[in-house]
């Protein structure tokens, strides 16, 4: 066992995992605070009015761009440094390259923050608000990312078929640089107007669908069987889920701009592809739920696993919702409303946020040679606050979206829709406080686990 551990230590660079996960958590808290700050503007009680660099519009761009590059990229890269060498059996390309990429990523995020808040240099691509001169650097970073993780995957596939996680990560490594290049540079230098709109909508969706989703599902396929110590229920469903996602997901983008001047054939194809994706998603969910069968007891005391399954259920809710509201009929009412904001928070925070928190909570004590987190109470408290907080925000914003949508159709004075939304916006801020409190508890637990002197041991429990 000791020899085995030593072998794994040589395989995985613990320092890189720790650094990325820690920075990811710090940025998670920062972007959550930025979102909270912006929500106070909607409530009409913004604490820093008239300060240029804390203008709510600028803060909102830090909330979205920071969530993408500061929080998610850091967290996912950290977890990939843990998972990829372990399931392929090969080290990543180079540790030195890893540290260079780590520093470069933090620098890119900090430059973005300075550029958006202080210099007013932003780009009007949602989720790509980074100034356009930074985008080629990000694409270059993603090419390094392809080499770094592509190397072990390539070596492993010389030996035999890759595990499911390997498919998702392989495809993601190729997609991400293409997506970032397409979304940020084509609408600025080649396309204009409706064509640019089609590219941008494809980008908004592809960054979720071809970066975040495949990494996250890839990691789920790795962590869930490892934690439950049993294989996935069906390999066939794994194949179906992956290839379904790979084929239909990239075609979804234009559904962000239905009823727009983009030619209708593109809008119809996006609606069709989106409904098709929900079938692929459902096959993945069936696979995970059947894997859980007989082991559901573990959800009671295994917090990381509970995070993962909660996120999986939220994922299915979001996708199920999407299959309906992507239709042109629903879009008449809910487009441009808070319904969409609720949808985005359920998927980004409720699913991917909870997943990476669960995975990080599984990995973190092991990185420090401990068996468990410092405090069970903090761990449980954080889970419930985050889960209830994001669910409350989702229901609240969904309802707010319907109120706004019907109010606008009714041709009432615009200010009515603002006044009617106020109670929902106040409630949203309260849900935000719950989520941020949860994140602070989670971070405190991380800090205490890392710095605890004595080795923390897990109690054995009768199941």
């Amino acid at each position, binding site marked *: 066992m000791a020899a085995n551990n030593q072998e794994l230590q040589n395989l995985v660079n613990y320092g890189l995992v720790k650094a990325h996960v820690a920075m990811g958590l710090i940025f998670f808290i920062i972007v959550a605070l930025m979102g909270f700050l912006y929500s106070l503007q909607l409530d009409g009680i913004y604490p820093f*009015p*008239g300060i240029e660099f804390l*203008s*709510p*519009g*600028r803060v909102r761009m830090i909330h979205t761009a920071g969530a993408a590059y500061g929080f998610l990229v850091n967290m996912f890269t950290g977890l990939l440094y843990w998972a990829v060498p372990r399931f392929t059996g090969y080290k990543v390309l180079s540790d030195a390259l890893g540290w260079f990429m780590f520093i470069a990523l933090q620098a890119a995020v900090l430059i973005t923050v300075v550029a958006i808040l202080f*210099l*007013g*240099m*932003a*780009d*009007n691509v*949602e989720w790509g608000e980074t*100034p356009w001169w930074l985008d080629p650097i990000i694409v270059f970073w993603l090419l390094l990312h392809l080499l770094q993780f*592509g190397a072990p*995957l*390539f070596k*492993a*596939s010389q030996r035999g*078929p*890759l595990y499911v996680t*390997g498919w998702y990560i*392989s*495809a993601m*490594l*190729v997609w991400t640089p*293409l997506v970032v290049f397409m979304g940020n540079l084509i*609408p*600025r230098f080649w*396309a*204009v*107007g*409706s064509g*640019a*709109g*089609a590219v941008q909508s*494809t980008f908004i969706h592809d960054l979720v669908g071809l970066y975040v989703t495949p990494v996250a599902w890839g990691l789920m396929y790795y962590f869930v069987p490892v934690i439950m110590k049993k294989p996935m229920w069906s390999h066939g469903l794994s194949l179906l889920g992956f290839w379904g996602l*790979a*084929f239909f997901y*990239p*075609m979804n*983008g234009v559904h962000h701009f239905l*009823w*727009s*001047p*983009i030619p209708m*054939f*593109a809008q119809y*194809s996006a609606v069709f*592809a989106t409904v098709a994706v929900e079938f692929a998603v459902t096959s993945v969910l069936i696979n995970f739920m059947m894997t859980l069968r007989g082991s559901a007891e573990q959800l009671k005391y295994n917090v990381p696993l509970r995070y993962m399954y909660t996120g999986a259920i939220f994922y299915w809710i979001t996708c199920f919702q999407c299959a309906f509201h992507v239709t042109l009929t629903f879009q*008449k*009412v809910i487009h*441009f*409303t808070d319904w969409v*904001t609720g949808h985005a928070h359920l998927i980004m925070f409720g699913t991917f946020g909870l997943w990476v928190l669960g995975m990080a909570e599984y990995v973190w004590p092991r990185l420090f040679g401990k068996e468990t987190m410092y405090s069970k109470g903090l761990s449980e408290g954080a889970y419930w606050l985050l889960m209830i907080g994001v669910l409350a925000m989702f229901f609240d914003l969904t309802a707010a979206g319907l109120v706004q*949508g019907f109010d*606008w159709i009714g041709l009432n004075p*615009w*200010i009515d829709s*603002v006044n009617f939304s106020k109670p929902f916006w106040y409630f949203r801020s309260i849900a935000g406080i719950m989520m941020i409190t949860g994140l602070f508890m989670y971070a405190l637990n991380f800090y205490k686990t890392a710095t605890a002197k004595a080795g923390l041991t897990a109690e054995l429990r009768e199941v």
Partner: protein
Amino acid sequence: MGKMERFSFVALVAGIIFFLFADFISWALPMFVLKDIKKKSVEDLAAEAIAKNTTAWSDFNKLARYYPESFKKLCEYTEAYSGASEVIKDCKPNEKTFAKALRIGHRWYIAEGCWNCHSQMVRPVSNETLRFGIPGVSNTVSYPSEFQNELQAPVLWGTKRVGPDLIREAAVHNIGWQVAHLYNPQSTSPGSNMPGYPWFFEKDKNGNIVPNERGLALLTYVMWLGSWEVKPPKPFRVETAEK
């Protein structure tokens, strides 16, 4: 099946072929359909506004007349990020200064995240033409050619409305309203939750609060939005600086 589960197969088929196929359907074909619509540069837009004597041009002239000091500073203002890097010697309202104001206004419209709360697209559904148009003046839905210009690359349709749509703004409010609203939105729209933008204003030598060069540019840009749809130009709007 084993071959399907290798790095090279996944990277080639899913990573590249599926991706390119989807991009072809989602945006390359739409771009091909739209390719015959002329792409206008900012200078083209300025020249067109002057030639048609739109409200945007008359509003720009008014701004130059009301705030001559800020207008002078706008001619001297250089800004690499928005591509307005030239000091304009001939500091009068003309095609060059108008184009520069549009460029800088557009740049700050993006930098302040205006597009996070204001869309620029009128959809053909949900009574939007009634809400955002003015009957008899401008009540059309958004159409591709009005976005086929440099100021819509990337496009500014937006995905969320907290405030109203702005693509027909020129027909809705006049310049005085816009100035007051940008400084303090609650002064013109009680109950609004839009923040004020005092850094687009400064005190002139008489102690009055006036838009500075950036504010002037931003106001020019906002008053330009939809000005091509205001037809025919109303008599009270067609006054130029030459008088």
